[in-house]
């Protein structure tokens, strides 16, 4: 069937064997691919109570029916696993080239189970699988390893972990194409726990498209739309995602010094404008992307991809640091060691606050750019202070008796947007299935950027409807798997139509959003099965009780309780946040229980 290769590859590292079998196409139609398909497979493969770092956990790599077709941003892929950082279901997705190449190997899904007794790397050439000894690669950093294994953007693509994953840091990323990351929630540690150093893919299959004329028309129309939107045709290409630094600071929603303030006096010095004027070499693109938001930046010490807005914020405003070269270098170091920049930056910020308040005995202080690199190195190797920081801010703050100083939800460090200035974002963080995350229905579009239309960021009543819609839409986009930036120029109806054109199966916009809702509810069921409750749908006390004393968000805290009540009702869940039988039946999920 067009749209899917209809093949699953299952690898057992314990025996270094593999098997292939047909993809369940009923499942594919309901969950599409990417995050959705990953969630559905994880439900069956990893039952309650499994230790995320044990051989019983799995890594599920998925692409989607649009992957590799050439549709704008059809380069992404997903990994789904149980998070060692949060204990929740975890999906992370990444751009670059690996996802497109993985699709060309002829598999929709790759499941990695078990644990190798010695370091190993896997090579997939078309459909052939080879296991290689990785003993001599163990300990290598990402950039050197990627080059050694023959990275070639359009032909051969490398996915690997760095020392952080090997050392089971719960904030370790899986890296692909040198500087792209499946970052959040610690998937690198899961890969490290399996003694799996890298997966290299080479393929030649071409995805089939049922209605080529309609596909061509939609490609053309999307190109027009992306060229017309100032966000995708000007702001992102010219300044990258860091364009958001001044914007978020100006509205008083830029988390600063571990969320102690909502504006950063040094924002201008670490802004997209500053990066472009003084450090940008050129911009670059993932495969099949007309936007080109990737930065290639240079300082006296490094040259490479990034930094993204979140990374710049995490090492910048969140740590009280206005030194852009130091931030660029910290970002590059995290990429080379295989670490999640958001969690690393926010964990360092948490340690800075603990230290400044004398709850923790360390030299870390806000504003000390010179402390970034050595601290990041220590995290990756679990040495010195890194032993405390390698497992994220919640474990760190709990150890020192102040868990409330971890700026996380469900244990995942929140990104840059301070929700006291964006009520919807607060609800989003509190209800996100993988914890404090902005990629699960980011409200920055409607609450700040006016995409698709500006809504009042302080409005509480009715805000849950927007959050629910954006969460469902994000889950659908993650299941296709496309980049969410396309949604700044292209409406969801295009995604539904292009999916129909590629697969030959009629999906309306509503059908596609329903897929997103199905995925969201399944993830919720997974977390409930793991013992999470509505009490976990919350935020750090600081965000609920401590209002900023100045700036545009002055006087506001997150009004979580009324929004949460409305949210549960709007989702068709009971007052305890448990999906009702009626809702599960509506989403074809009742069969799972």
């Amino acid at each position, binding site marked *: 069937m067009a749209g899917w290769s209809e093949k699953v590859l299952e690898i057992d590292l314990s025996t270094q064997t593999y098997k292939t079998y047909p993809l369940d196409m009923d499942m594919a139609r309901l969950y599409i691919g990417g995050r959705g398909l990953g969630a559905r497979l994880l439900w069956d493969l990893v039952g309650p109570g499994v230790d995320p770092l044990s051989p019983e956990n799995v890594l599920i790599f998925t692409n989607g029916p649009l992957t590799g077709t050439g549709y704008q941003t059809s380069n992404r892929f997903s990994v789904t696993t149980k998070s060692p950082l949060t204990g929740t279901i975890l999906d992370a997705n990444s751009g670059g080239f690996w996802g497109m190449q993985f699709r060309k190997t002829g598999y929709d899904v790759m499941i990695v189970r078990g644990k190798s007794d010695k370091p190993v790397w896997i090579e997939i050439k078309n459909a052939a699988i080879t296991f290689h000894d990785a003993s001599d690669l163990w300990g290598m950093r990402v950039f050197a390893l990627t080059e050694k294994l023959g990275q070639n953007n359009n032909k051969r693509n490398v996915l690997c972990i760095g020392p952080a994953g090997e050392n089971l840091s719960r904030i370790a990323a899986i890296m692909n194409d040198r500087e792209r990351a499946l970052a959040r929630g610690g998937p690198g540690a899961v890969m490290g726990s399996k003694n799996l150093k890298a997966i290299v893919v080479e393929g030649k299959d071409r995805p089939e498209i049922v209605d080529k*004329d*309609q596909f*061509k*028309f939609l490609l*053309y129309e999307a190109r*027009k*739309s992306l060229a*017309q939107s100032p966000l995708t045709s000007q702001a992102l290409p010219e300044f990258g995602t860091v364009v958001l630094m001044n914007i978020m600071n100006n509205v008083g929603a830029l988390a600063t010094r571990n969320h102690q303030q909502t504006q950063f006096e040094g924002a201008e010095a670490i802004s997209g404008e500053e990066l472009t004027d003084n450090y940008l070499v050129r911009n670059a693109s993932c495969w099949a992307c007309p936007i080109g938001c990737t930065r290639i930046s240079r300082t006296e010490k490094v040259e490479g991809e990034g930094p993204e807005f979140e990374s710049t914020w995490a090492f910048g405003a969140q740590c009280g640091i206005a030194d852009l070269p130091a931030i660029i270098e910290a970002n590059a170091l995290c990429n080379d060691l295989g670490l999640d920049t958001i969690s690393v930056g926010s964990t360092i910020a948490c340690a800075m606050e603990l230290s400044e308040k004398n709850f923790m005995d360390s030299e870390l202080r806000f504003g000390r750019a010179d402390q970034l690199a050595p601290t990041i190195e220590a995290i990756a190797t679990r040495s010195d202070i890194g032993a405390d920081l390698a497992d994220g801010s919640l474990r760190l703050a709990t150890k020192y008796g102040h868990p409330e100083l971890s700026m996380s939800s469900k244990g995942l460090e929140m990104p840059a947007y301070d929700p006291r200035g964006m009520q919807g974002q607060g609800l989003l963080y509190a209800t996100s299935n993988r914890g404090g995350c902005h990629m699960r229905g980011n409200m920055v579009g*409607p609450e700040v950027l006016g995409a*698709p*239309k500006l*809504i*009042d960021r302080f*409005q*509480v*009543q*009715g805000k*849950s*409807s*927007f959050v*629910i*819609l954006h969460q*469902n*839409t994000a889950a659908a986009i993650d299941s296709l798997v496309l980049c969410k930036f396309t949604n700044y120029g292209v*409406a*969801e*109806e295009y995604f539904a*139509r292009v999916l129909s054109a590629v697969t030959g199966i009629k999906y*309306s*916009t*509503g*059908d596609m*959003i329903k897929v997103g809702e199905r995925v969201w509810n399944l993830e919720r069921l997974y977390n409930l099965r793991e013992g999470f409750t509505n009490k976990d749908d919350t935020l750090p006390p600081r965000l609920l009780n401590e209002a900023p004393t100045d700036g545009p968000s002055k006087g506001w805290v997150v009004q979580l309780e009324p929004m949460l009540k*409305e*949210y549960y*009702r*709007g989702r*068709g869940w009971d007052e305890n946040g448990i999906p009702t039988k009626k809702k599960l039946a509506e989403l074809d999920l009742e069969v799972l229980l």
Partner: protein
Amino acid sequence: MIDTRIYEQFRDIGRDLYTANMISSHAGNLSVRLGDKLVIKRRGAMLGQLKPHDLVETGIEKNDSGVALASSELLAHRTIYMSTPALAIVHCHPRTAIAFSLSRDEIVPIDNEAAYLLKKIPVVAEEFASGTPEMANKVANALKDYKIIMLRGHGSFATGQTLEEAFLWTSILEEACQIMLYAKLIDEPFIEYRKMSESYTKF
């Protein structure tokens, strides 16, 4: 208690619909979704002069006393919310678009903006074109694939994430129909300027 911020959105869009000649004095209605509830204009209220007490909150799937006050098109609004991801609905009576709906099964704009943003607007027909389940189902079904549709001889239904967005589609539709009307009046051969324009009818 309905938030003042929500009332202000209703008041402004309602006034703009009236001043743009999209409705007669008491016609048309607006609604927004609030979780499992919706807020809709009170039956008989003037859209161009809405007061806070002209808004009614009621359930999307569940009745309560609010239904006694709500607009006669409540059923259509509810059905649309149950069938689509809409968060806001604008229903009004754009005159030129209604005129075109009387002779066409679809309206395919010829101007740049409407072609770009709407591509095509389907026309659905229902004998009992106000307040009936049949009409509600037909309208909601059409809105699964399009953000704005015409109900023959009656008016437009547009969805969006906000009232402003749904109003945008409505406004573009009426402008497109006026342009088509002027082009008909000028009555000169149409020179196609859009690439792949034949695909619009298939959209």
